[in-house]
């Protein structure tokens, strides 16, 4: 074991890195776990005694409804992203390499531009006297403007618009790895297009699907500014509830408990992703 004096640089680097992560990642997360089992306190935010009231409060019908509605909107967002993204990634992976790189670049350009501004741009399109309604009325297809803004649909559209690249990128990477020989082998063994799709393509792209689901589903429950701008007060996300508890109601235990539910969901999805990858690895080796 080299002593500290012999490798001052190494020691300094490790202390800095560990210090940062312990103070700004581990400690805050432990704090949230701790806060979730403590009691709300108007002065110091949290105080003893320990209890599970915050978790019980999650099952209060009022909040349960918000959570289920949020989960529903997040699930719809994920489904729409998958339905758009799966064929998209497939089609993309069949193009020439140079063109693929350009198109991937075009895909991440919107993703690096301010998400608030992009949500606002959608608002301009969807508003009652917005561009879509004006266009449809101008064409004479509708007489009354459609109510699109401040609906559940608007929130889902907003979330899909912001999160689609997160679904496409992992899908693209699995389609890119998909070996053409496997498809040919399946064809040679007498499988039709549909059978090949179900038995070869779907299982091999499953890790990409799960990675995409993970990257879309969780943010789709947390991006509180989307319902704020597009959804009105009836289409809230878990993120809105958490934000409300921490910034307005000052009920830390409840906000912390809600955030732990999100984290646990993430952990389960990550585990599923790992297992699906391992399964493919074993089948590939055997």
């Amino acid at each position, binding site marked *: 074991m080299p002593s500290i004096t012999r490798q001052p640089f190494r020691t300094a680097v490790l202390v800095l890195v560990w210090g940062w992560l312990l103070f700004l990642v581990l400690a805050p997360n432990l704090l949230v776990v701790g806060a979730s089992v403590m009691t709300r306190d108007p002065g110091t935010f949290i105080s003893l005694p320990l209890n599970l009231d915050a978790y019980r409060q999650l099952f209060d019908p009022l909040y349960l409804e918000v959570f289920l509605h949020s989960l529903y909107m997040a699930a719809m967002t994920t489904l729409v992203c998958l339905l758009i993204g799966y064929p998209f990634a497939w089609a993309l992976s069949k193009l020439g390499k140079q063109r693929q790189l350009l198109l991937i670049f075009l895909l991440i350009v919107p993703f690096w*531009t301010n998400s608030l501004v992009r949500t606002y741009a959608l608002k301009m*399109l969807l508003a009652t006297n917005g561009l879509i309604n004006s266009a449809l009325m101008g064409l004479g297809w509708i007489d009354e403007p459609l109510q699109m803004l401040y609906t559940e649909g608007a929130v889902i559209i907003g979330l899909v618009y912001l999160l689609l690249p997160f679904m496409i990128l992992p899908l693209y990477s699995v389609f890119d790895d998909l070996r053409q020989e496997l498809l040919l082998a399946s064809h040679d063994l007498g499988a039709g297009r549909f059978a090949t799709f179900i038995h070869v393509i779907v299982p091999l792209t499953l890790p990409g699907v799960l990675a995409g689901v993970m990257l879309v589903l969780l943010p789709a429950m947390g991006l509180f500014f989307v319902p704020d701008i597009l959804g009105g007060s009836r289409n809230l996300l878990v*993120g809105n509830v958490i934000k409300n508890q921490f910034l307005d109601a000052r009920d830390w235990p409840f906000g912390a408990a809600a955030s732990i539910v999100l984290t646990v969901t993430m952990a389960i999805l990550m585990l599923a992703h790992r297992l699906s990858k391992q399964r493919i690895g074993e089948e590939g080796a055997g």
Partner: protein
Amino acid sequence: MTRWLPRAYLVLVYLLLYVPIGVLVVFSFNDSRSGYTWGGLSLRWYQSLFNNNAMVEAMWNSLWLALSAATVSTIIGALTALALHRYRFRGKKVLNGMLFVVMMSPEIVLAISLLALFLLVGIQLGYVSLLLAHVTFCLPFVVITVMARLSGFDESLPEAARDLGASDFTMTRTVLIPVIMPALLAGWLLGFTLSLDDVVVSTFVSGPSYEILPLRIYSMVRVGLKPEVNALGTLLLVFSLVMLMLSQWILTRSKR
């Protein structure tokens, strides 16, 4: 199935992605006050943007924050990547795991955990809290960028340097840093854009003493349509685009 169908599909999806942005840019030059009807070409929204002192101050605050957050996260991120790549130490997997968790966990979870920390430890919400938070969420991205560069690197060079008597620090400075330079630049630019665009974490950890751009936009767009936002959005778009192209250019050039 024919060849044109998948291609038509790709084009359609790109249209859907870019139409809202296109509308935003076009309407930023619109003379009309209403956000929906075209009233001729004008730069009035850009003008009113720059005449708004609070807005200009928020812009400078955001730029300064992004600049410092990107710099600090690049330094710490690069050192982390070097440590992960070169050193054997206890808890390496834990370290890796923590970085992965930061990257994967929903932003809002990170946001409230940092808010709780700052309030309980007594760090005032403002520039310092924003900087600490932004560096934390940029860190994993820098580490990944630098690690990718290091993994394709010939191990005999640092060994040769060590054999010739260079200390660890000297070897890092003279051999490793030049090798990972492009990744450092790319990571810095990535951190800069991430910091500039962040809404969720900043909403929680900023205080009235240090107002930044995304929060100002947020309060503007919540109440209604504001044509100034179109102008501001267009400026941010051009800015991010330039940064992104720069980082891609640096990365592809260094590969040759």
